[in-house]
Each structure stands twice: as structure tokens, then as C-alpha cells.
């Protein structure tokens, strides 16, 4: 059995769905962060696979993936700083307990 585009797409879709599910249901802030990264990984696989099979010879998808990796690293840095600050202020990183403004 050879690996076709569809195998990559299904893998990417599964990863993306795991990521979205994780963002929506996780209680721990760091787990949310990890889920975000998983969702981005799904997108990256999608782009690289499409670039390889649909437009062979150009590297547009790969370049896009490099940008996504860079930006998500920056985002993770900011996110960890904010979560650290949350821990300093709230003494917890449980998402459910951080809701001063719900009404």
C-alpha cells in the first residue's frame, strides 16, 4: 500500500480535530497551549502535503509552514508569559477558576 495525499489529509484532519477538542475542553492552561500547537501541526501537515502533491516543484506550502512554525513559537512565548502571570495573580492555572468577569 502506498501513501497517497488522502492519508496525509486524514492525519492532518485528525490532528486538527484533536487540537480543537483540546482547546475547547482542557482545564489546564498549559494543556490548552499544547492543543493549539497540535492544531497548528495539523495545518502544517496539510500545507506540506498539498504542496508536495498538488504543486510539485514549488515550495509555497513549505514556506507557509515555516512561517506558521515561527509565528506559533512567538505565540507560545507570549502565551507562557501570560500563563505565568496568571499563576502569579490567581495561584492557579485552572481555566474554569479564572472567571472573575462572568455574569
Amino acid at each position, binding site marked *: 500500500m502506498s501513501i497517497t495525499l488522502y492519508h496525509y489529509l486524514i492525519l492532518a484532519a485528525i490532528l486538527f480535530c484533536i487540537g480543537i477538542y483540546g*482547546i475547547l475542553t482542557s482545564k489546564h492552561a498549559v494543556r490548552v497551549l499544547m492543543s493549539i500547537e497540535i492544531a497548528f501541526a495539523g495545518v502544517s501537515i*496539510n500545507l506540506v502535503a498539498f504542496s508536495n502533491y498538488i504543486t510539485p516543484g514549488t515550495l509555497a506550502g513549505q514556506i507557509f509552514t515555516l512561517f506558521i512554525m515561527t509565528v506559533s513559537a512567538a505565540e507560545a512565548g507570549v502565551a507562557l508569559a501570560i500563563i505565568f502571570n496568571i499563576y502569579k*495573580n490567581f495561584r492557579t492555572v485552572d481555566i474554569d477558576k479564572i472567571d472573575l468577569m462572568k455574569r
Partner: protein
Amino acid sequence: MNLNFGVFTPEIILLLTACIVVFGEWAFKSVDGNNNKKNRNIGFVTLLGLTITLAILISFKVVSYGLPTYLGNLKESTFWGSFVLDDLSIYFKIIIVFSAIMTVLISFRYVNEKIIHVGEFYALLCLATIGGMFMSSAAEMITFYLGIELISITSYVLCAFNKDNQKSSESGLKYLVVGSLSSALLLYGFSLLFGLTGKLNFEDLALALEKFTTPLNTIYVIAIMMTLAGISYKIAAVPFHMWAPDVYEGAPTPVTAFLAITSKIAGFAAFIRFLEIFNLDVSSKLIILIAILSVVTMTIGNVLAIVQTNLKRLFAYSSIAHAGYLMIGFIPLLQGKVQEVSTILFYLTAYIFMNIGAFASIIYFSKYTGSTDIDSFSGVAKKAPFFAFVFSACLVSLAGLPPFGGFTGKFYLFVSAVNSGYTWLAFVGALNSVISLYFYVRIIKVMYFKDNKEDLVLGLPNAASLTAAIISLVGILILFLVPSPFIQMAIEATTSL
């Protein structure tokens, strides 16, 4: 090969300003620990940088009309078509930078008193503005994504800027989670569009998408939905509006103003760019979706605003409702009548003035009342009649009543809806304006007709916020009294679409 760095001049100037301001944090530091002068100098440098940027943008416009070859239709694209400088993007950049200048003006004293690292605050504000400028001239998916992320990531930090304040940190975290979720959705949609066509450039993408007609490919539908979801979080349209009230309430008030104004304008710029890629067949389907979302957005925004007791929260719902009104302008765009996009541009211009006036007053009053609850503002009109008047004028304008610019803007939006054959949409919009009148007038009532219990002492306003208030008052009056030059400018901006 086309590497024209000239079109980046405004962005480069603003980037340099951001760098200078960060280093100014040390350069202007005084030895005796009194940082007032340092903070003021940093603020002035930021204002100077933003003003130079605005001047360059305006000169682009003037120069493009001066040259006979352009005939008022400037379209300069660079870096292999990834970044485009046309009349629309110049208009958007001008209003984005202008709103950033006004935000700096109204935040001058607040930042001086409440924010420790002033240089970093202003630098992040400049960077976020650059992100908005990139969004308005992105002609390609990567640039588009980078613009959105640049304005988003800096906004997360700005929201959490009051480090010791629990609400501020919470708003930063909430914005971060929602923002990342939306950018993941946006990227997945982009990756599917890339897979369908093999193109990243919007122009090539539009050509490649011509052949997709109804019944639509399921993958294509998923791609459209995900991408629209990713962008509509930026303008806080239903169903991606949940983050707005919490984030707006927790963030420092100048940042709330920035999110409500500059960030929203950038979101609309991106939305207009993106909606251009669909062919008429797909657009006719999208119109129904946009019309429904517009009605739901304005209704939810206005109805939920009625029960709010906190002003910043109320303004979050008000900005959601305004996103709903503005989405009416997408309908003619999708029908191919690009000139009608000028209604969005004009309303956004009025939107800057009325929100700046309102936020200038909120920042000024809440400094002395110590809270942003509506009830804490009771009786302030007797102590500070000018700011109360500006606030009231802006509220009346937001509700869409004459004699202010908000009325003119709404009038043009609704007229364009009627001309596009969506009279019911204009009707619902007018009905919503009536609902919004209720909660806007309630604030005016509290300010003028309620006695304050304790002895509230209001100090003198500072020059910067006074300037901003005067500019906004004059702005909304001018937009009502002589709207035609501004409408003409907005129409000229749409010629490049």
C-alpha cells in the same frame, strides 16, 4: 522581479519608532526616580512617529493624484504580488494610523500613571498598528496571516499589561485562547483553499476559484466557513463575539479603545480583501449568510448591552452591534457593486471619532471615580460639563441620531442595503438603532440627572485628552454637516477594488 521597498516607507518609519521608543525606556530614564518626564518624552516620540507615518500616507495619496499616469487609481504591488498598495489600502492605513494617534492621545495620562513600562506599551501599540496596516494591504495568504498574527499577538500582551491586576491577566489569557483558536481555523481554511487551487496569491486564487460553481464541493464549503470564522473573530461578529466583553472589561482602558477601534478597522480591511476572491455564484450564496449574521450580530450586541452595568462591557457589546451594522456593507460588495464599499469606509471614519470621544471621557471620568461602572458616573456633568457634553454627543452619534456623523454613516449604509434589494435588512438596522438608543441615553441620564452621593472632585483634564475630545467632537459634526468630500474620498478609495 519587483522589490520596491518604497511602498513600505510608512511601516518602516513606524517600526523604527517602536525600536526608538523601547530604547527610550532606558535613554530617557532619570536618576532621581521621577519618571514623569521620561514617560512624557516617550509619548511625544510615539506621537511624532505616528504623525510622520500619517503624513507619508497622505503624501502617497496626494502624489498619486498629482501624476497623470495614475489617474487616481494607484496600484503598486511588490514582493511578487504579496503586498499591494492601492487606494483602498491607503485609505485604510490612513484611518488606522489616525485612530492609533488618537488612542495615544487619550491614553497619555493613564499610561503615565498606571503603566510601569511605558516604552514597551507604546512600542507594542506601534507594532499592532503595523499589523493592522499589513492586513489592509495583504494580497496573499502568508502576508494576510502575518498581519493578523502581528496585531493579535501584540494585543494579547497589551491586554495583560497591568501585570498585578487579576482582570487584566484574565483578559489577556482569554483573548489569547480565542485568538489562537481562530487563527487555527483560518489557517486550516487557507490550507484547504491552497489544496483546491495550488495558489496563495489572492488574485490567482480568484481566477482559479472562478470554475467552482454550485453545487459546491464540500471541501470548498468547509474552507470558506473556516476562513470566514477565522476573520470574523477579529471584527467580533456573532458567533465569534464571546471574547469581546470579557477582554474589553479586563484590559487597560486605552487598550480597550485600541481593540474597539483600530483592531476592528483592520479586521474590516482584511474582510473586504478576502471577500473579493469569490465568484458571483458563490457570492450570491454568501450574501444570505452575511445578511443573517449581520442581523444576529447587531441584535445580540444591542439587546445584551441593555443589561450591562459596566461601561467597558457595554462598549464591547456596542462594538459588536456596530460590526453588525457595518456587515451590511458587504452585501453590495458581494453583488459586485464595489463602489458601495465606500459606505463601510465612511462609517468606519465616523466610528473612530465617536468612539475616541467616548473613550476619552471614560478614561477621564474613571480616573476620578475609580471605577467604570455606569452608576459611578452619576452627576459628573455638573463637575465637568465639557467632557460630559462630548460623551453625550458621541453616544447620540453612536445611536445614529442627527446632528452627528453616526447618523450620516448609518443612513448611507441603510440606503445601500435598500439599493441592493435588502430593504428588510435596513428596517432591522433602524429598529436596532432604536434599541441602542435606550442604553446610550441611560448613560446620558446618569451623567446629567442623577445626583452623586459622595463629594466627587474632578481635576483638570490634561491637554492631550482634551485635544482628542475636541477633535472627535469636531469630527462627528463635520461628518454630518459636510459629508460629501469624505464620501468622495471613500468612493475614490474603492476604485482600485
